[in-house]
């Protein structure tokens, strides 16, 4: 059975059906594309065929390109990868152009056959690009269906004509949400965005598509850009209106991507340069930019981490081989900010929730948090009254531990105090299922130590959420010394239920994420102390793709938390480097605790809006002249993080570099363009990275010392993904 099949119906409509065997969603590979072309050729040449409907045998249309195809082309092409990719892309353009021209005479636009695309459901990437090449697009009114071109979100752009076709259909400005933001649209929105032409009831989809094909006139199948006098909607680049659009778009995209995401710039260039020439030349330009993006290591790194490996982790790449551990009833201890958030995401995923706090009022407040979020969702039309009621019904807010009866998972989110935690552990374990799992949401305390309070330490685990729970995509699962496989599987299955991305790490101080974030923040603070201008520190971080500068991040997480961690760390570690304490404790004593105090590294107005760096900083730490080079500041900020990631890998805290990379991007927004800390080191090259470590160490101290693993890899000329690869081999141990 092939991915595409064709059946010519009695009414003269050839129905080409895409149905990849053994897959839940269609993805396109080379062989299938070629089969599709053969079928189109046959239908166009057969006299008994009046027109064509392209549809899917599944309840969705397509998920996009099979990304392994691109990888194999790259491999096959050897040293000439750019040529191989360009030829492949141009071949795709040729096939889609064949569909679009449908046998028409080039000059007269006569003699073609109508081709409609019938979309039963979700359609993304090249699926949408195939649809755009057709003459008419009909989508089923399927509540789950979304259509769009989300390539930009993984560091690519629509490179099978989608960029050129859609921008010519609606104009550069109107195309922006779909092309530049990668927005996926519901059928009705997609119709107003001209991505599709009709929305019909699902059971009429094929009939309506055929009806269109059988009634289409010769002009209905000619694309505007194939007629004389075509003008780009909204104005071509040097039309006065288009001029403003492009000048503005350049600035906005440049500002938003900070120059580190090559895909958006390439996309915009394909639109701009394409708009100045005829359609076929525009496709060639698009192909050149798409090739350039595919050849950029950042794009491969982003696809790897944000698409392939994120999905692999979500599907349980590192899940122990034990039976399904789906959670039925979760007990959440502590209804503060974190507990309330965990309750919401759990109930939202259909899990029954018992939300416990010492006072009923606090428990109720925790539940009200869910209500607030649901109300917000209703305002945006994303949540129905019915759904709201269902979700709230699943949450029982109480002070009564007996309500934990029947819980197969407990998530403890009480104060970061071992005593309090030990107490609630005992109380919960007495009531919950004997074979259930107890998880702590601690961010600072060792799991192994907390597990001592448990009567069943193999059933004890860390599940570390990030704040705000409903927004943050990452969950860090921490194995204590005695944590068993069932507990790990339970945590992973729970995370999957609540549709977040898990990483599994071993138990060492600050686990993985916080371990890497702290040196980042500290490096920013050190630079302030040295006299680097705060603006340069903050801008340098943003210019290398960090979502927040280290000083702003400190304001967001609060200075007193930093001071608290500093004191605790100092107490427990004889080698503790206390350089930054001087600034942190001073800020604390000045009451500049961060955003919550409306005063921190930044000044804030009465509405909590940042108004600029606080003058007190400059007054205390005079800025140096000259200031360091931008790249020096950036390297200090990034190396501080990635070296910690390497050390976490060496120490076995991190067991899989994929988790290290995905976790860093989702957990604290580590420069997504780089694919994560290990992706970044691979882009730099381990040899150069080791060399930089030595330079930074000489200038700034031992914290930049090259970890032995990195040194060894530099000497052997290895890359992280080359050595630790993906899948089973990625285990560092």
């Amino acid at each position, binding site marked *: 059975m092939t991915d595409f099949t064709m059946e010519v119906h009695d009414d003269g409509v050839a129905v080409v059906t895409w149905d990849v065997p053994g897959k839940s969603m269609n993805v396109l590979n080379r062989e299938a594309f070629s089969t599709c072309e053969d079928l189109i050729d046959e239908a166009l040449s057969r006299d008994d065929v009046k027109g064509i409907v392209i549809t899917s045998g599944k309840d969705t249309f397509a998920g996009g390109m099979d990304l392994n195809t691109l990888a194999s082309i790259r491999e096959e092409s050897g040293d000439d990868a750019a040529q191989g990719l360009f030829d492949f892309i141009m071949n795709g353009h040729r096939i889609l152009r064949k569909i679009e021209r449908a046998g028409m005479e080039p000059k007269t636009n006569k003699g073609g056959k109508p081709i409609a695309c019938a979309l039963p459901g979700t359609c993304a990437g090249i699926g949408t690009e195939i649809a755009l090449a057709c003459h008419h697009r009909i989508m089923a009114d399927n509540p789950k269906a979304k259509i769009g071109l989300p390539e930009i979100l993984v560091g690519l752009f629509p490179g099978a004509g989608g960029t050129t076709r859609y921008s010519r259909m609606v104009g550069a400005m109107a195309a922006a949400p779909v092309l530049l933001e990668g927005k996926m649209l519901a059928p009705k929105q997609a119709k107003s965005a001209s991505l599709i032409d009709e929305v019909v009831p699902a059971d009429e989809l094929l009939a309506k598509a055929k009806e269109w094909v059988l009634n289409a006139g010769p002009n209905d199948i000619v694309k505007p850009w194939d007629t004389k006098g075509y003008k780009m909607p909204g104005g071509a680049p040097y039309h006065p209106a288009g001029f403003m659009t492009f000048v503005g778009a350049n*600035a906005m995209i*440049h500002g938003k991507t900070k*120059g580190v995401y090559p895909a958006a710039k390439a996309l915009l260039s394909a639109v*701009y340069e394409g708009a100045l020439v005829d359609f076929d030349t525009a496709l060639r330009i698009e192909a050149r930019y798409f090739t350039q993006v595919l050849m950029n290591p950042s794009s491969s790194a982003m696809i790897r981490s944000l698409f392939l490996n994120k999905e692999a982790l979500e599907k349980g790449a590192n899940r122990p081989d034990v039976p399904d551990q789906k959670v039925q009833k979760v007990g959440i201890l502590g209804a503060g900010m974190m507990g309330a958030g965990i309750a919401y995401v759990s109930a939202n995923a259909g899990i029954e929730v018992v939300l416990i706090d010492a006072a009923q009022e606090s428990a109720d407040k925790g539940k009200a948090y869910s209500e607030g979020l649901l109300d917000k969702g209703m305002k945006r039309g994303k949540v129905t009254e019915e759904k709201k009621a269902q979700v709230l019904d699943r949450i029982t807010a109480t002070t009564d531990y007996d309500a934990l009866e029947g819980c197969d998972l407990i998530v403890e989110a009480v104060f970061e105090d071992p005593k309090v935690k030990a107490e609630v552990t005992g109380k919960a374990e007495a009531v919950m299922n004997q074979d259930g799992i107890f998880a702590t949401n601690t961010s600072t305390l060792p799991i192994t130590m907390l597990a001592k309070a448990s009567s069943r330490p193999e059933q004890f685990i860390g599940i570390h959420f990030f704040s705000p729970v409903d927004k943050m995509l990452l969950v860090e699962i921490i194995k204590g010394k005695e944590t068993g496989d069932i507990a790990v599987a339970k945590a992973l299955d729970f995370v999957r239920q609540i549709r977040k991305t898990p990483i599994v790490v071993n138990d060492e101080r600050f686990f993985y994420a916080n371990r890497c974030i702290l040196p980042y923040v500290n490096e920013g603070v050190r630079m302030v102390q040295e006299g680097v201008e705060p603006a340069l520190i903050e801008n340098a971080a943003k210019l290398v793709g960090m979502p927040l500068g280290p000083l702003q991040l400190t304001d967001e997480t609060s200075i007193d938390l930093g001071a608290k961690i500093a004191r605790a760390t100092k107490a427990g570690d004889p080698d503790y480097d206390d350089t930054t304490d001087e600034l942190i404790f001073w800020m604390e004593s000045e009451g500049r605790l961060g955003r919550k105090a409306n005063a921190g590294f930044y000044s804030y107005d009465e509405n909590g809006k940042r108004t600029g760096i606080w003058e007190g900083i400059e007054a205390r730490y005079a800025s140096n002249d000259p200031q360091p080079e931008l790249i020096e500041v950036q390297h200090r900020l990034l190396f501080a993080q990635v070296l910690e990631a390497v050390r976490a890998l060496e120490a076995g805290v991190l067991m899989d570099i994929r988790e290290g990379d995905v976790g860093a991007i989702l957990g604290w927004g580590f420069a997504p363009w780089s694919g994560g800390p290990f992706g970044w080191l691979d882009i730099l090259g381990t040899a150069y990275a080791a060399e930089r470590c030595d330079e930074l160490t000489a200038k700034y101290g031992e914290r930049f010392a090259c970890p032995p693993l990195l040194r060894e890899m530099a000497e052997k000329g290895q890359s992280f993904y080359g050595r630790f690869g993906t899948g089973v081999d990625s285990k560092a141990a």
Partner: protein
Amino acid sequence: MTDAYIYDAIRTPRGKGRKDGALHEVTSARLSAFTLNTLKERNNLSGHAVEDVIWGNVTQVMEQGGCLARAAVLASDLDESIPGLAINRFCASGLEAVNLAANQVKGGAGDGYIAGGVEMMGRVAMGSDGAAMAVDPQLAMDSYFVPQGISADIIATEYGFNRDEADQYAVESQRRAKAAWDDNRFGKSVITVKDQNGLTILDRDEYMRPETDMQSLGSLKPAFKEMGEVMPGFDTIALMKYPHLEAINHIHHAGNSSGIVDGAAAVLVGSKEFGEKWGLKPRARIRANTKIGTDPTINLTGPVPVTEKILRETGMEIGDIDLFEVNEAFASVVLRFMQAFDVDHDKVNVNGGAIAMGHPLGATGAMILGTLLDEMERADKETGLATLCVAAGMGSATILERV
């Protein structure tokens, strides 16, 4: 090498560059031709006296397109054997035309030239010729393109000029321009623009607002704040290029920036022999001229490095220059120039500048050179320097020496 001299320099008055401006009715070619004819007549030149007409013009589309220099020659009383060269170095085009002419003379390629330029900003809108630098994503992003107003505000931020200083500068420019007119200091070079019947169209700069004071300027909103901070957010681009800055201080507005006007100017440049042949007395020697490229984002700082360059090339020091004309594109441009060289405002733009009288892009360079020469003669100064900032990060400069 042959020396190049200036024999005459004239300019039209500057008309408001909008439909109620007096020159709005005049075509670009006709105003150019009128200026060429005036220069020809008052110097008793024949129609074929010069080698070429080098004509600066920035927005070379529509009626200013298609080699306006040639159109101007054909529309004038000059002989058809004079070809015509249209050039564009943005705001320095008029000066660049003179420099090119001088260098041709110095190199022996012809004895005499008319050089100058025109810009009818009310008839052909600034920016209507497109610009890949702003529109092409590769170019715009690689060069951190921002509009010039943002660049002027970056200068203010980087070099520490506040709104009051810029406004004070603007008030002074207005005061000086009025005083200069009252004292008839432009009499030597300003020509009266007349129609085909000999009727006067304009005989005086009409853009000036001598009543301008700090209070009236204070009521103006910064012109580039919105595009900088909100849509499309050019400040972000500025901070990406200059990450040590925390925010851009938007201080410029219509009152402390150059005005949009119509106008033309022409300079007669020639060798010693040229003067002898036509019985003309040289007014000044063009001692040196040069140009430079610099950072395109801060864009308008060119007068500083180009002045450093020309001083280096001539072995002169800043103190050797008696008078300066620094084009007043924006207040911060001149403030930065004075700050960088520590020169007194008494030596700079002594008769006002483009903030008061306007900046007809393609003509201004030739206009300020004439203004400089007039003032050197009036005040009996030996040496003067004219310089302009140029879009996309360039600068031009010329040093004159009286003979």
